[in-house]
């Protein structure tokens, strides 16, 4: 059992920031466990989602921003839909992930790399380019064997375009990302 010293580690400012960014009142969670009961991802989480909510109430910033669960949540909306207190739990998970990113955390490096590869592809082409983002993911992670078994299935179907379908004006989309970065985001 983990014992945490609340007097030493409770970060009140962290709770306030999560509440502000997510628009959710974390103290409303009464630990019924309905979110975890419906969460399809508990089998890969290091901290089940109802415990994420409890640790959040206890202001355990370090534990939460370095955990795997926040990267593995797929925003399937089961927790949000079934919360009896109408807490948008998936939004809280998203908010924790945003904060972890801003603090340079990457506990699930593969997941972060996939997200980065996807968005780089959109920034460059205005649309997601499937082969391009897969190559970029492989380069970032060094996982050269990623889905090689799928290539013979996909190529004859003509489903994978070798070239990106770019928008006419990709600069318009690149400018969205530029302005976002100018605001101090990575």
């Amino acid at each position: 059992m983990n014992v945490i010293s609340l007097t030493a580690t409770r970060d009140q400012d962290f709770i306030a920031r999560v509440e502000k960014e997510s628009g959710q009142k974390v103290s409303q969670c009464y630990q019924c466990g309905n979110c975890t009961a419906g969460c399809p991802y508990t089998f890969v989480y290091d901290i089940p989602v109802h415990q994420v909510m409890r640790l959040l109430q206890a202001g355990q910033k370090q534990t939460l921003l370095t955990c795997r669960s926040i990267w593995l949540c797929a925003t399937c909306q089961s927790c949000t839909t079934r919360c009896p207190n109408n807490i948008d739990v998936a939004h809280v998970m998203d908010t924790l992930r945003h904060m972890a990113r801003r603090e340079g955390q990457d506990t699930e490096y593969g997941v972060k790399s996939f997200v980065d590869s996807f968005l780089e592809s959109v920034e460059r082409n205005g649309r997601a380019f499937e082969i391009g983002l897969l190559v970029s993911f492989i380069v970032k992670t060094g996982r050269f064997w990623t889905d090689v078994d799928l290539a013979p299935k996909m190529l004859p179907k003509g489903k994978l375009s070798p070239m990106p379908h770019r928008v006419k004006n990709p600069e318009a989309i690149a400018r969205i990302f530029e302005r976002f970065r100018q605001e101090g985001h990575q």
Partner: protein
Amino acid sequence: MSTRLRYAYYPGCSGQGTSKEYDTSTRAVCEALNMELVEIPDWSCCGSSPAHTVDHRLSSALAGRNLGLAEMMEGVSAVITPCPSCLTNLKVASVRLRKPDFAAEVNKLLDKPVRSTLPVKSVLQAIYEDVGVDAVRPKVFKWLKGLKLAPYYGCIMNRPPEVMEFDDHENPVAMDELMDAVGAQPVPFPLKVECCGASYGVARRDIVQNLSGKLLDMAALNGADAMVTACPLCQMNLDLRQDQINSANKTTHNMPVFYFTQLLGLALGVGEKDLGFSKLCVSPRKLLDSLEERAQRKAG
């Protein structure tokens, strides 16, 4: 139907690649149902799941650019998209943009401010609500008699209900009713809204093998000949990754996974070129031929 329904159509990036057959069958089915789809000029990526995991203003700006382009189109009643991931992004953005503070933040990222005045719907919702099941039935050219289907909606098309505003969030029925209307037989499927593993196939394949494996097991257990889906990512996980799932879980599924528009199109007389059955990885050919044989035997 006297008036032709006219929509701003958002195909989504996968419609040009891994889910081409969803796009072509959607366009053909809408044509057959007298729905006019006008592609949003120079539409761009909605941001999909990756953008909202990074920042909600970035995500709403990427989706919002498209809502802004759609607003400038003439005579369209709604933005519609076949893809639930695009749908979620466009819809969440349009809901959040109603808050002036948030809208101001998003508009700082965009070339042109977006007002967001058009409703956003899935193609399934537009067919179900604007055309209606009763209007589909008289147009059937070929009944899909005897085809047992596990209807799988995916996790986000109906959830959360306050945002998605369509069908039931635990037991949706729109696709069941449409399949029933064209003569197919939806089987009970308790995992209608469970997650398939989403976009973790590349970074964490074990997740997709587990979650999509459960879906295939349940479909087989309930006697389905095939699954019918409304989501490019669900379809890809279940179809393209079916061999990976089989070898990880020591199963032997050979379950075709259709888009609902392919089956609707087949029933409405759409040609193979637009239906794109040959693009599915698990071939449905044998299954469809056996239906044909059964029908001929009955007729003979």
